[in-house]
Each structure stands twice: as structure tokens, then as C-alpha cells.
């Protein structure tokens, strides 16, 4: 997932285009590596690279986050622009949505000013055909001066042509900025700029358009303040903002091109999926649809995954076969009690780590990833953003923030990285805080559903309302405390598409592999740590130290301390510790509810914590950590008091 330092001898080809046009699918097809593919803008937020054989040679292929404009307004767009300026790739594959040619060509004309050889890829050609649009690739190729290829990336159609076309890539004509006003503006800018200012046309256009993020590119001794004031002087001479002039000039060109290239063959009426997409956006029946979707997910994950599958794996596979089998084998081959304890004792690797990871969490996570993949690929998630926009405004956010929060239900670490799609620093901090505090990840959700499965539904209701309440209150409080204003809600809604089972399967297996690779070792370390803590008697010490908090304030048994200690390693691991306490009959209903709330709100796992440091800096991450600890202990303790007063709440 990083810009790896492959030796410079291999030429680089980079995929650039609007969001949600299928760059990642093409990347996967070319390199054989899997990049997450979903049906919403902003799936890719960082650069990923792989190697492929194209046009008879070895190429480095790079996938970039989608851009609306290369004058970036969010961080993921900035990643792409910086890559183009810094790495100067040898060829750009400009991926367009064939059915939305006008918008795609805007990006083509914008890329043309980077003066890099280019191939234009008209992807989603099948959807364009369904809408009765016939595109003349040859004419477009002649007008732009670059090869144009039609593809359907999901089926692989046209990819052979694409591989060949890389060889014939050419520098496109500067069609978009060929306007008198802009030309003279550029000339004036050249005379105003110091001599050692960057000479690239793209950088100068960005300066003219007032894109201040480009100022750091003033290499060669020119201070950014000088560049800024020079650009400002030139901009002041325009009656209308130069950025708007540029867009309108490009738009004029694009319309000419479209008129030449597109012929309409009559259009099919809107299908069922289109109508579903429209309904899902309206309050009626949008909220009903949301309810049905939520219920279906709960049935599949909560009832089938957490109930049936876990029951079978835990009580039949592990309890009857694996654990007795392992015990028998180990007693036979390892007569030493120390080794026996470490493998199958109460804190044993097989009896504890493996049974948590495989019997308890794996089935739930697998069913969750399937359900989640279906939601992602259908294009339903962005529609939730529209429905929830008003609610999120209470928290100083807007509907765009719904996406990272929902992705957090899958994995909070990845979701913390997705906060890049948000516009302002304030919003990114609030969402990072909420992800660390209230949003349970899939693995944690798994254990929570497992614990609540046999209990009265009221426990789950109390847990849910406390979480929602905490989210709203914390978000509201944070939005009042942090400086800055809420950004305005503006978001693209992708069309509803039928999910491809192949992609769902692929995505689930990639995520499960990741789960097994990352989680199982951590579970083993955690178990070993617990084992030694227990053996050396430190567990008792820790329990004594924390007993005023755990027993006094939270009203939990002393053994719960261990769950919270390892909870930092993996949140689900902590939850699993509580699960075993509950199985041993050590927790009553009140204590179950309090500990569920606490383990959800408590510290994020190590991986997420490190990601917070990477994305928010150490100051932000530490502040968030302190806030999370304070709020988590405060809320859980308060809940304990409330439940002591009204035991009827949880039955």
C-alpha cells in the first residue's frame, strides 16, 4: 500500500481518473494484485503499485485515488496530484466512465497540461451501450492526439488492446487551456514569477487558478510567499476568477468533443435498480429500506453467524474434537506440565487463542464481510449518507462522514485512514475520535453479539442506546470545542449496481486472509502474555492495583481486569476475555451490560492506535487517547450506577 522504491529502470504507468470509474479493477486485471474494489467514490485513498507485462516490457503499474480535479480539495485528491508532480510517470492511463464522457474528458484536458504521454481508457463501455450511447473512439483519438481504448474491466473485455496501446501513448494536445484570456494570463504570470520558479505548465496553471496547495512545489529557492503574492497579483487582473474561466474553457472544448464523438441510439427506460436507487434516497421509503437492510444484516451476521455457526464450531468442532484431540496428543508427546499448560491450560495457546480466533470470531467476521461486501458493491452506502446528513450535522459533521463511520464497523484501522476523504481537519479529528471511541469493529461486534445472544434483548438495546447517545454527545461536544466550521455537504452518489459474486468472494477472502495473518499471531502473543502474568502472579498485582476502578467504580469482578489489559492488543480479544468470564457464570446481567459498553468504548487496538499517530500526529492521537479513556470510564461507571438504581432496565 505504499509508494515502494522499485528501481527506476522499470517505466511507470499510472491509472488516473474520476472517482468510481473502475481504476482499481483495471489495476487488478493488469497486475494480478488485489486492490479493494467497491461501488462508491473514495474506496482507494492511497497509492498502490504492482508489476505487469505490457507491450512486451515490464512496467510498474500504479493505482491512485480518484480525483474530481487536480486542484485538490481533499487529501486523497492531493495524493494523486503529488504523485504526478513528484514521480513524473512515463505513461498516464486516463480512465473515464464511458457513459459520463463529458465529465471524464474534463479530467483528460486537465491531465493534458501535465505534458505526460497518455492513453485514454473508456471503461464501463457496457453501461454506456445499455444507455444507447455509441462512442466514436477513432475520432476522439484523432482530436486528442492520444490512443483511445474501450474496455469493460469487470469482464476483461478490451484489456488486450489496452496493454498494446501503452506502447503508442502520446503527449496530448493542450486543448483545454487554448483560450486567449488564459494564454495572456500565463504570459503575465511568467513575467511576474521569479526566474527560478517551477516551469511546469501544470504548476503555473494551478497557481493561476489559486490552488494554494501547489505552493510547496516552488523548488529552487523561491519562497512560497513570493510565489503566492506573484500569483495573487496576476489573479487580481481578472474580472472573474481564473479558475472558473479555466473550467468554462475546458467545458466548451469538452462539449465540442462530445458532440462529435457521441451518437445516441435511443435510451432504455430506467430499470429496477435505478428506481431502487431513487427510493433509497428519499425519507420515504428510504428509512424503511434502511431498516430492512439492517434487519437482514442482523439476521445473517447476528443470528446465523453468531448463533448457528459459532455454536457448531465451538461446541462441536472445538469442544468435542480439537481440544480433546490436542490434549491427548500433547499429554502423550510432552510430559512436562509447563508445556502442557502453555498449550492447553486455562491460558493455553490452543485452548484459548485458537478457539477464540477460529471458533468464536472467524465465522462472525466471515459472514459480516460477505454482508458488508454486498452493501459496498451495490452502491447503497452513499445513500445512507444522504439520509443521515441531518443527524451528522449535530456533531459538526456532514453526510460524507457517514462512510468512514460505517467502514469502521468493518475495521476501525482502515476507516481511520479513510477519514482522508473529509474536507476539513476538524471533521477528520472528530471522526477519528468517534472511531476510536464508539464504533465497534466487526471482530468486536462478533463477540458482543455472541455474548448478548443468549440474554434478554434489552441488554442489546441498552448497549445500543448508550453507544448512540455517547456518539451524539461526544460529537456535539467535540464540534463545540474544536475551532473551525463544518464543511458543506456535497457528495457524488454512484448508481445502484448488481454486485458481482466474484468480487464479493475475492474481497471476503482477501479480508479474511488479512484477519488470519494479523489477528492470530496477536492472539497468541496476548495469550502468552496472560499465561506468564498469571504464572508469575503479576495478574493478582494488576487486579489489586486496578480494583478501585474495576470493582469499585465499574462494579465488575476483579478478573475482568485481564480482559481490559489485553483489550488494548486487540479489542475483540478483550471482548473474548469477557465472553469467557460470562461463560464461567462470573457476570450478572448488570455486569455484562457494563462490560459490553466499556469494552466497546475503551481503547482502540494497537493497529488503530498506530494509524491514529500516522494520520493525526502524536498530539492529536494522544489527546484522542486521553479523551477516549476518560469518556469510556465515565460513561461505563455512570451506567453501572444507573443500573444499580434501576435493575429493571436489563431485566
Amino acid at each position, binding site marked *: 500500500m505504499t509508494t515502494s522504491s522499485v528501481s527506476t529502470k522499470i517505466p511507470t504507468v499510472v491509472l488516473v481518473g474520476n472517482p468510481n470509474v473502475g481504476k482499481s479493477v483495471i489495476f487488478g486485471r493488469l497486475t494480478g494484485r488485489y486492490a479493494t474494489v467497491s461501488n462508491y467514490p473514495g474506496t482507494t485513498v492511497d497509492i498502490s503499485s504492482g508489476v505487469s507485462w505490457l507491450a512486451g516490457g515490464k512496467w510498474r503499474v500504479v493505482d491512485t485515488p480518484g480525483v*474530481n*480535479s487536480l*486542484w485538490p*480539495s481533499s487529501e486523497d485528491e492531493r495524493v494523486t496530484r503529488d504523485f504526478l508532480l513528484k514521480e513524473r510517470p512515463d505513461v498516464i492511463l486516463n480512465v473515464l*466512465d464511458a*457513459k*459520463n464522457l*463529458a*465529465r471524464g474528458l*474534463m479530467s483528460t484536458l486537465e491531465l493534458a497540461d501535465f505534458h505526460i504521454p497518455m492513453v485514454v481508457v473508456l471503461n464501463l463501455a457496457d453501461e454506456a451501450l445499455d444507455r444507447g450511447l455509441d462512442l466514436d473512439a477513432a475520432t476522439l483519438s484523432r482530436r486528442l492526439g492520444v490512443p483511445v481504448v474501450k474496455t469493460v474491466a469487470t469482464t476483461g473485455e478490451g484489456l488486450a488492446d489496452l496493454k498494446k496501446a501503452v506502447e503508442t501513448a502520446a503527449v496530448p494536445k493542450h486543448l483545454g487551456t487554448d483560450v486567449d484570456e488564459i494564454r495572456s494570463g500565463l504570459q503575465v504570470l511568467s513575467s511576474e514569477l521569479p526566474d527560478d520558479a517551477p516551469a511546469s505548465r501544470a504548476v503555473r496553471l494551478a497557481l493561476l487558478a489559486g490552488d494554494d496547495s501547489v505552493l510547496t512545489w516552488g523548488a529552487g529557492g523561491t519562497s512560497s510567499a513570493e510565489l503566492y503574492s506573484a500569483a495573487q497579483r496576476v489573479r487580481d487582473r481578472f*474580472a*472573474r*476568477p481564473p*479558475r*472558473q474561466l479555466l*473550467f*468554462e474553457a475546458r*467545458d466548451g472544448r469538452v*462539449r465540442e468533443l462530445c458532440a462529435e464523438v457521441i451518437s445516441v441510439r435511443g435510451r432504455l427506460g430506467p430499470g429496477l435498480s435505478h428506481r431502487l436507487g*431513487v427510493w433509497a*434516497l*428519499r*425519507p*420515504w421509503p428510504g428509512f424503511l429500506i434502511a431498516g430492512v437492510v439492517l434487519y437482514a444484516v442482523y439476521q445473517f451476521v447476528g443470528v446465523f453467524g453468531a448463533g448457528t455457526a459459532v455454536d457448531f464450531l465451538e461446541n462441536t468442532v472445538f469442544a468435542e474434537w480439537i481440544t480433546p484431540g490436542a490434549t491427548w496428543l500433547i499429554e502423550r508427546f510432552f510430559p512436562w506440565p509447563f508445556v502442557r499448560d502453555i498449550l492447553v491450560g486455562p491460558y493455553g495457546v490452543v485452548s484459548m487463542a485458537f478457539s477464540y480466533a477460529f471458533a468464536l470470531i472467524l465465522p462472525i467476521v466471515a459472514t459480516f464481510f460477505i454482508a458488508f461486501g454486498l452493501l459496498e458493491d451495490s452502491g447503497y452506502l*452513499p445513500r445512507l*449518507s*444522504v*439520509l443521515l*446528513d*441531518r443527524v451528522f450535522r449535530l456533531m459538526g459533521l*456532514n*453526510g460524507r462522514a457517514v462512510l468512514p463511520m460505517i467502514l469502521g464497523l468493518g475495521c476501525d484501522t482502515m476507516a481511520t485512514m479513510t477519514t482522508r476523504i473529509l*474536507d476539513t481537519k476538524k471533521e477528520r479529528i472528530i471522526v477519528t475520535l468517534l472511531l476510536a471511541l464508539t464504533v465497534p469493529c466487526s471482530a468486536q461486534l462478533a463477540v458482543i453479539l455472541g455474548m448478548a445472544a443468549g440474554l434478554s434483548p434489552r441488554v442489546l438495546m441498552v448497549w445500543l442506546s448508550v453507544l448512540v447517545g455517547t456518539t451524539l454527545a461526544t460529537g456535539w461536544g467535540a464540534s463545540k470545542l474544536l475551532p473551525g466550521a463544518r*464543511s*458543506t*455537504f*456535497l*457528495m*457524488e*452518489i*454512484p*448508481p445502484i449496481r448488481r454486485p458481482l459474486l466474484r468480487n464479493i468472494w475475492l474481497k471476503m477472502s482477501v479480508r479474511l486472509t488479512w484477519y488470519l495473518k494479523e489477528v492470530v499471531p496477536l492472539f497468541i502473543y496476548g495469550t502468552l502474555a496472560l499465561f506468564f502474568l498469571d504464572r508469575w502472579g503479576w495478574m493478582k498485582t494488576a487486579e489489586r492495583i486496578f480494583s478501585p476502578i474495576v470493582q469499585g467504580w465499574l462494579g465488575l469482578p476483579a478478573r475482568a481486569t485481564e480482559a481490559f489489559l489485553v483489550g488494548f492488543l486487540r479489542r475483540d480479544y478483550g471482548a473474548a476475555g469477557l465472553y469467557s468470564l460470562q461463560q464461567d457464570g462470573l457476570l450478572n446481567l448488570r455486569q455484562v451490560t457494563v462490560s459490553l459498553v466499556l469494552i466497546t468504548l475503551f481503547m482502540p487496538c494497537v493497529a488503530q492506535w498506530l494509524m491514529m499517530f500516522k494520520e493525526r500526529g502524536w498530539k492529536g492521537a494522544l489527546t484522542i487517547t486521553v479523551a477516549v479513556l476518560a469518556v469510556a470510564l465515565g460513561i461505563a461507571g455512570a451506567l453501572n450506577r444507573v443500573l444499580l438504581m*434501576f435493575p*429493571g*432496565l436489563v431485566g
Partner: protein
Amino acid sequence: MTDTQKYPIPTAEREDVEESLGLLWRQRELGFTEGNQLRNALAAAGSPDGFDRLVRHGFIKEELGQVWLTPTGEELACDVTRRLRLAERLLTDVLSLDRNAVDPNACVLEHTISAEVTESICTLLGHPGECPHGHPIPPGACCRNNEAQLSPIVSSLSRLEAGDSGRVAYLQIKDHPELHRLLAMGVIPGAPIHLHQTFPAFVVEVGETQLALESAIAARIFVRRTGRGGGAFGRNRPKFRRLSPFLWRWIPSHDRWWFLTWKPPAFWWNWTELLKSVW
């Protein structure tokens, strides 16, 4: 009250005075208020004695080298600027005149339109906030009252109803840099636009792109309407009537009036008891 009654100046002179005041207003927007600068600006615009005439009529006064508009002057300058900039909008948006033809014609038009016509034009254009050059249009009484009886040709997206369609006329984005993203997403003057819904957020289709946006942005997108939606889901209908038949049909007939027979439990302050009695 007509203009002649309001500002008793001979007609031939009036145009000159108005021109000069409009110029002063623009200079003040740019931050120039020094007497000498303004004298030169007026002289350059072709009326060397313009400055003194304004002083004579009591529209401006000069103190310590700074020039101030008197209350009458302020009112007339504001009015003139408003008329000029509205005229430019009218010529650009509705009559689609070429850019080069807009300015000279607007200059003539501004002196001939009366207060009533100004208000009508403003309402017709949907109370625009900026002229085509991007200068602010001072709001008039009609803008403050938010009048919309006269069905406007160009109106902001936030005033349209679900189902309406049209073409983007212009974006008012100078004071809102975030909205440049709209341009990148294809909301460009001339693009066909269709409004799907207005609540909980505005959803529009521009070309093949579907966008969700909040009303603060919708208020800055001005659309020349070509098709009218409304219909069963239009915004004219009260919300209650739209929803109620659906909700009503969902309740089985024997259960519709259950709340009339419901008795609160004796321990009504215990909310678990309360919930039990409802279910």
C-alpha cells in the same frame, strides 16, 4: 414615488450624476475613498466637473481628504449600482447577449428602468447576489422580503421543486471557495440539471452524475428552468398528506384506534412498566 420626485434633478444632468455615483460606489468597494484619487477617476471617466457637481447637489462631502457619501447620495448610489448590475444579469441570463454587447446596453438600460421594474427584474432573476462580473448586487426590498410571486425564469436551486429540470445558469461561488468542487463535478453553466428531491438533502442529476448537496449550496446554484415537475411528490403538497396514507394502510384496521383504549399502568413513572403496557 418615482425617481424624479425622489431626486429632484434635471433629467439631462441626472444620467451624469448617476454615472458618477455608480463609479464612486465601485471605487469604494475597491477601497478607494481619497478625494484626489476619486477626482482623477471621475475625470478619467469623462466628467471633469463631476466631483464638484456631486458636492453641489449634496450627494457627497469631503472631509480631511476623505470622501463620504451623504445619506441621499448613499441611497442613490446603491440604487444605481443595483440597477446596472441587475441589467447586466438580465441581458446575460435571459436575453443571452454576447459578452461584448452586455456592457454598453446595460449602461443605457440602468438609467431608464424604474423602481418597480427593478424589483420585477430582480424577482424574475431569482434575487441574484452577483453581477456577471462577480461584483455584489446590493439587495433591494424585494430580496429582503424574499418575494417569489412572479414565477422566476432563473432561480436558485433551493427554490425549485422536486421534479423540476433546467440548465445551470451560473454559480455564485466567489464568496464560497469550497464550491469550486461543483465545477469539477460537472455543475458548469449550460449543463442540464434535474432536481430529484429536496429532503433530507438536495439530490440532483447533472449529465450522468448524481450529486447530493445541502441547501446552503443549492442556494448558490442558479438554474434556468425548462421543465416543471411537481406531481404527486411535489413540494407543494403538505408533508403530512404525502406520508399519512402509507402509514395508515400499514396499521391493520382492528388496531388503528388502539391508543384510545390504552390505560397507563399504575407505576407510570417506571418506564419499563410503561413499555410493557404498550406492547
